[in-house]
């Protein structure tokens, strides 16, 4: 909501249903057959991270936990694997949000990158610790692609919050 120092744009308040829809949309993107392509980002992690940075009062660890359960069941993974990683992601993202939003978009993406990579590494460690097979380095390309997608994702997810074009010239703000 707060304009960053590079952009002084004032945004409309976010609509809760849009947050909900975007999170569900991200889950559907994860279910698409494209999820098996190498280097596909974890869309849910990206969108969840975005909202935890932007709207940490609305989207927090509770949402992260529920989405994690959904992804665990959908993936056929061990229950709790995504929950753990997403809850950690939501916590770190929301606690860093005040700092992250102060940077221009490209630098925001750089700060998001370790969080997304961490999410992937945590999941890999959990599964490797209980004897799963190493999934190959392709598994760790996704977060880098997601980092690049931070800039378009910000644009798309903030689109409904930009001020309408027809403006009242007499309005003070």
């Amino acid at each position, binding site marked *: *909501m*707060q304009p960053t120092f590079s952009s002084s744009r004032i945004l409309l*308040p976010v609509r809760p249903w849009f947050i909900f829809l975007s999170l569900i949309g991200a*889950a*559907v993107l*994860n*279910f*698409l*057959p494209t*999820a*098996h392509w190498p280097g596909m980002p974890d869309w849910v992690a990206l969108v969840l991270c975005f909202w935890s*940075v*932007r*709207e*940490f*009062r609305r989207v*927090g*660890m*509770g949402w*992260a*936990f529920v989405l*994690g*359960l*959904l992804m665990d*069941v*959908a*993936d*056929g*993974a*061990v*229950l*709790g*694997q995504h*929950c*753990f990683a997403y*809850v*950690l992601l939501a*916590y770190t993202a*929301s*606690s860093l*949000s*005040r700092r992250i*939003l102060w940077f221009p978009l490209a630098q925001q993406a750089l700060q998001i990158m370790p969080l997304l990579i961490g999410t992937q590494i945590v999941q*890999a460690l*959990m*599964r490797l610790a*209980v*004897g*799963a*097979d190493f*999934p*190959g380095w392709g*598994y760790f390309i996704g977060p880098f692609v997601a980092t690049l997608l931070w800039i378009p994702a910000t644009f798309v997810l903030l689109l409904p919050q930009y001020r309408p074009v027809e403006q009242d010239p007499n309005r003070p703000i």
Partner: protein
Amino acid sequence: MAGMDHAPPPFFKRGPAPLALLTFYIAVSLAIFVVDLRFKSLELLRQSIALIVDPVQRVAQTPGSLVDYAGQYLQGMRSLQLENEELKHAKLTTAPDLQRLAQLEVENTRLRKLLDVKEREKANGQVAQIMYTARDPFSRKVIVDKGQQADIAAGLPAIDEAGVVGQVTRVFPFSAEITLITDKDQVVPVQVVRTGQRSVVFGLGNGQLELRYMPANADIQVGDLLVTSGLDDIYLPGFPVAKVVNIERDSAYSFARIFCVPIAGVENFGEVMILAQRQARPERPPESASRAAANDGQRVKKKRMAKN
């Protein structure tokens, strides 16, 4: 600053501190992780979540299957005719064996009866369509379109036209999850066709299988066929499983490393046949003399208790 909103921040109802929430959620996540992995007692939770997720996943998979369908539709008459001819030819080449199969089976049954050997079980099952691969990169699983509604149960084996594909590991109301034999946790009891030697084959997770615990001087060659041995209550005997492709014999180790590739199109999409439950086998004899003795001791105790 970031959370600044048009609604005033809730000063007086702040809820638990973030760190407390984090601890709570992490504890719950780890608890269900351990419970699901060790005790497998969360299947009901998984099934109820799957009831919501499954339809969405099916819808998400439709674009891909539509593209496939369009591709097949546009494939053209000519290639279909070619395929049809090939199939007819293949049918003709297997005809001599197949036509005599019925007679052979009858003869086999009769001979077995003469010898007082238990009749060989017949395999029957139902065909299911593979819908998609599970997204989990740590395991090798596929989802098929039949579940509890079609009487699929966890543990049933799945085969395709060439051999064993895997085993049903989880069942949902309208779908089931098949763990492929190449998964790292999957084990199939097999027999080497050429020598009759029994062993178990383990998935390696990279599309190959390994025949473990065979002595370094075991009589096994590249190209040997492994079929299910039927020594478990799951797989019927005689289904092809894998073919040996590479043997590393190192005298420093007591076991040879024997690598195999699956015979069935394990990584392919298509249809699989989920075999029905095997008939109950006769009870196992007591495991060892000492154990039997221990059981007898218990019985004696019970008798004494009863007398008292």
